[in-house]
């Protein structure tokens, strides 16, 4: 840690305030939004004539016939998709970590992770629909169908396809978090010791490694749980319709032209927040129970076995999960170029550029808007993150473990719970819903990911390079700009790519902060869902995916080209 930096310039004076400013930018909107939701939920919204405190909105909410079903759906989809994803990730790590197959899985992670939720959901929908690729591939020789069967596979009332759609996107995220945790705690020795004591590999991993890994990934797991309970875009594409999930219903009430419906929407958002809090608590209780059972299992000394069966099972499940995305995207590609395509043909009778040509003109301004919003929010998030990390370095403002919770606040507090409040606040304070508002809200979600992605490599940088540079006559700024940042080019670009992908994928924040007037590829693609024109949907979902993937390619190739003659940075 190099102290004694120049502190007179405006920039140097700002630096110690960077963490506080970042926190305000990130957590401020969440707090304001929750307040903006709470007030009307309890009847207080003077602009609409509500100036008392009452529970009328809640009474209306609980009179709504769909309330039980919608609430149950929220809890079941959340817990089921989170538990399934976590189980699959744990099994893959237990059965395969350290193997060559595992390294291949690791390499597939970033691209899978960067596919936006909506695009992945559309891809999955086009695979499993009654007229989807799976049905086509097995018809009529296996199924006997010569027309799409009348089955409710998509948007089934139990939310099964919604759960599937969430699992395929959550597995790569949780796996990435697990890998990061694994690299922090040296696990090889513990596992090898257990192997030497006669434990089978999977049992050894679960008994010695998993408890420590889980402690590290608890916050991401909570974030995933809260997210899947309240997701809107995936739910609009794959979720049940009568009734819909609670969050989708809240959005409908928000968009109702009758402004008094906002009391109801706010009450429902508060209820959704309570459901998430309750479910998190339930999950925490589950953790305690499983930990107790796990202790007894460890004490039992059971060595376990079935390594092969678990290996086969986990790899199959992982492949299935990954191919749901890969073939989903492939399906979008085929649909976007499809001419006439009758059931049960595996491929269209003809390929054509017609759909792309017809939508190119409409697409262009939307692509530009999406790029502007993503670039601006990513750039600001990156600058704030770097300022925070550099302040930590120069002024010793290192966040404690409590501060890490703050990073997760925007990821754990459901979007629907505070964005509704933000929109209400915006409308009644006369703040215009425009691009700037959308960028500001995107930063709230981009920042945590950029920070989480960049913090470890930034802190892991060998500080002695800085000491040498200072001894050679460079100031603090010189060390930062001439040594540290160039050396960290690859992780910085990767963090930017992550932030970019996060921004591209945002549906609800774009919709609510933009009041429906700011159109990005995601809002447009999801809006097309109800129309059901697969060719057009595919064009939008593919453009969305391409935009999210592009920066990852950038982050891969730019350092490789810039540092082509610098062996020491090839793996940095």
């Amino acid at each position: 840690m190099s102290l004694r930096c120049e502190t007179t310039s405006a920039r140097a004076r700002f630096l110690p305030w960077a963490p506080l400013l970042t926190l305000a930018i990130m957590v401020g909107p969440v707090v304001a939004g929750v307040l903006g939701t709470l007030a009307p939920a309890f009847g207080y919204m003077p602009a609409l004539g509500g100036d008392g405190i009452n529970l009328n909105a809640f009474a209306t909410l609980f009179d709504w016939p769909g309330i039980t079903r919608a609430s149950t759906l929220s809890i079941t989809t959340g817990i089921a998709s989170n538990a399934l994803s976590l189980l699959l990730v744990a099994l893959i790590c237990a059965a395969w970590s350290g193997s060559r197959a595992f390294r291949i899985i690791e390499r597939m992670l970033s691209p899978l992770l960067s596919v936006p939720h909506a695009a992945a959901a559309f891809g999955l929908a086009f695979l499993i629909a009654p007229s989807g690729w799976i049905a086509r591939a097995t018809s009529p020789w296996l199924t006997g169908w010569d027309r799409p069967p009348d089955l409710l596979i998509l948007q089934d009332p139990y939310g099964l396809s919604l759960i599937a759609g969430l699992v395929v996107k959550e597995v790569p995220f949780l796996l990435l978090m697990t890998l990061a945790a694994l690299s922090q705690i040296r696990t090889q020795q513990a596992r090898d010791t257990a192997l030497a004591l006669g434990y089978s590999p999977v049992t050894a991993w679960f008994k010695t490694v998993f408890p420590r890994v889980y402690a590290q990934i608890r916050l991401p797991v909570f974030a995933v749980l809260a997210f899947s309970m309240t997701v809107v875009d995936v739910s609009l594409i794959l979720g049940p319709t009568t009734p819909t999930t609670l969050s989708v219903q809240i959005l409908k009430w928000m968009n109702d032209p009758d402004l008094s419906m906002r009391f109801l929407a706010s009450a429902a958002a508060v209820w959704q927040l309570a459901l998430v809090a309750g479910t998190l608590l339930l999950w925490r209780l589950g953790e305690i129970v499983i930990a107790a059972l796990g202790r007894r299992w460890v004490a039992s000394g059971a060595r376990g076995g079935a390594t092969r069966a678990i290996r086969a099972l986990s790899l199959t499940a992982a492949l299935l999960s990954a191919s749901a995305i890969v073939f989903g995207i492939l399906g979008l590609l085929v649909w976007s170029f499809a001419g006439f395509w009758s059931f049960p043909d595996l491929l269209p009778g003809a390929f054509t550029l017609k759909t792309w040509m017809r939508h190119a003109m409409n697409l262009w301004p939307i692509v530009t808007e999406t790029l502007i919003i993503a670039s601006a929010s990513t750039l600001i998030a990156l600058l704030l993150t770097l300022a925070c990390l550099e302040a930590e370095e120069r002024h010793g403002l290192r966040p404690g473990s409590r501060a890490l919770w703050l990073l997760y606040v925007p990821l754990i507090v459901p979007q629907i719970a505070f964005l509704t409040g933000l929109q209400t606040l915006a409308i009644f304070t006369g703040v215009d819903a425009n691009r700037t508002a959308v960028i500001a809200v995107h930063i709230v979600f981009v920042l945590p990911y950029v920070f989480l992605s960049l913090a470890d490599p930034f802190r892991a940088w060998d500080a002695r390079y800085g000491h040498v540079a200072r001894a050679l006559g460079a100031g603090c700024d010189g060390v930062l700009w001439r040594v540290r940042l160039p050396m960290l080019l690859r992780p910085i670009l990767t963090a930017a790519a992550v932030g970019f992908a996060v921004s591209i994928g945002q549906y609800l924040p774009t919709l609510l902060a933009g009041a429906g007037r700011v159109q990005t590829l995601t809002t447009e693609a999801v809006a097309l869902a109800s129309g059901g024109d697969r060719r057009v949907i595919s064009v939008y979902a593919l453009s969305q995916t391409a935009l999210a993937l592009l920066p990852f390619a950038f982050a891969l190739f730019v350092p490789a080209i810039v540092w082509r003659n610098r062996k020491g940075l090839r793996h940095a």
Partner: protein
Amino acid sequence: MPDPGLTLDRVIIQRDGRTLVDISDHVAPGEVLTVMGPSGSGKSTLLSYIIGTLATGFDAAGRVILNGTDITDLAPEQRHVGILFQDELLFPHLSVGENLAFGLRASAKGRAARRAQIDAALEDIGLAGFADRDPETLSGGQKARVALMRMLLSGPKALLLDEPFSRLDTERRDQIRALVFDQARAKGLPVLLVTHDHADADAAGGRVHRLE
């Protein structure tokens, strides 16, 4: 000049109430003072105090005086104290020549003049024509020489060595050691060498200060 050389005036460094370093000494120009002690004894901590990069969490007192100037409160880049670590720490994103240019003070003006100075420096250490090379492609001994030259080009008034020879094989070690000490003597620099290797201390030939 009053009292040329490096003076450590009752430098005491503590951590959690435990004294790591307690030293008062004067190193004359061209002299080598060796500080010896087992790992964890605070040898490197003393060097970070002298160059001004001591981490927070240490309690340090005492003055560092270089050629009569108290540098204790100066920023590291204003102290003109050069340091060599066990690792060469050549900046991996810069070429060999750019690494030297990083060290060369900006007072040497003009692209061509700077370039000529760097080429001459490379020739001095037997690496003529290496300016455009990737430092990572150099051998250990070559890297050590570049690191030394980079530091010398920054015009230091004192030299700190943090076990800089321990990574080299025996043959190279003697060669680099001789090079460093010769350069320091020729330039009349006070040298503070930190090591746990008696051979280093013997080769330095100066006084030895032991840390517990």
